[in-house]
């Protein structure tokens, strides 16, 4: 089975995208973002280990994973959810926002960092339009 480090993981969802049997899933709701790992469906291909940008996923040599109840085979990692400052939709984890800010080295201001992709597109388009035409 794999082990996800709760310190290193930022909840970006790269592992969820790559996972062939979708043993890793991410659920975003108002309060929290939950990264779920269902051992019962994992095929132990280590694609998530390879792809994790934070190197948060570790391989282990545990294989005696039997359980009487399927729900015992579920692991959850709970992150905080950040809401978009424009539309108020939950879209990303707080750790992910910080990590992106750190990697961009201040290239993104907070007003764009805490805005969801759809709203960010609109904001940028508006900015360009204002620059070109000079009208608000």
């Amino acid at each position, binding site marked *: 089975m794999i082990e996800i480090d709760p310190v290193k993981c930022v909840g970006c969802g790269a592992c969820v995208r790559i996972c062939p049997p979708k043993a890793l899933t991410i659920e975003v709701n108002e309060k929290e973002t939950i990264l779920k790992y269902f051992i019962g*469906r994992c095929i132990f291909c280590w694609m998530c280990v390879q792809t994790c940008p934070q190197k948060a996923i570790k391989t282990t040599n545990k294989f005696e994973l039997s*359980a009487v109840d399927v729900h015992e085979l579920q692991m959850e990692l709970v992150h905080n959810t950040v809401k978009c400052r424009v539309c108020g939709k939950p879209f990303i984890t707080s750790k992910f926002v910080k990590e992106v800010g750190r990697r961009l080295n201040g290239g993104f201001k907070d007003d764009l960092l805490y805005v969801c992709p759809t709203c960010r597109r609109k904001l940028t388009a508006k900015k360009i339009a204002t620059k070109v035409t000079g009208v608000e």
Partner: protein
Amino acid sequence: MVEALPRNGSVDLAKAFDKLKRSIWVFHLNTGSCNGCDIEVLDVLTPYFDVERFGIKLVGSPRHADLILLTGPITIKTLDKVVRAIDAMPRPRLVLALGSCGVGGGIWFNTYSTLGGYPKLQELLKSLGVEVDKVVYVPGCPVRPEAIIYGVALLLGLAEPKVRYERVEAVEG
């Protein structure tokens, strides 16, 4: 089909369940698996692991079996045969769902031609009135032979489960 079930004498059933400590006979039921798990099941029975020394024996008919080794994601094509095989078993019925496919459907968990794992089959069996007394889920792709033996030990109450449901809060760095 359902009327042919043995009389549900709960006292007798509990007694039979208590007696079932060793020498369980297994029936190998492939429900459309890729044969990876089936080879591992064979491995368990061959001299290297040799579970026949514990009295675990492979039998040719579900009517002789205490335990079904279920591999594969339960394809629609095999579904009626699977239900009939499980129904043919005498009580107490035990099932060992093997492999990622048997437990959660594996990479076929949401395709049109499979049921997607044992939990969904169990719901179906319940609606048909076929009761299964105990199930143990053994993940792995394919399952290691040691994991299969451990699963049987867990089923008979000889070992403790090693994995638990976990919910961890992420640490803000």
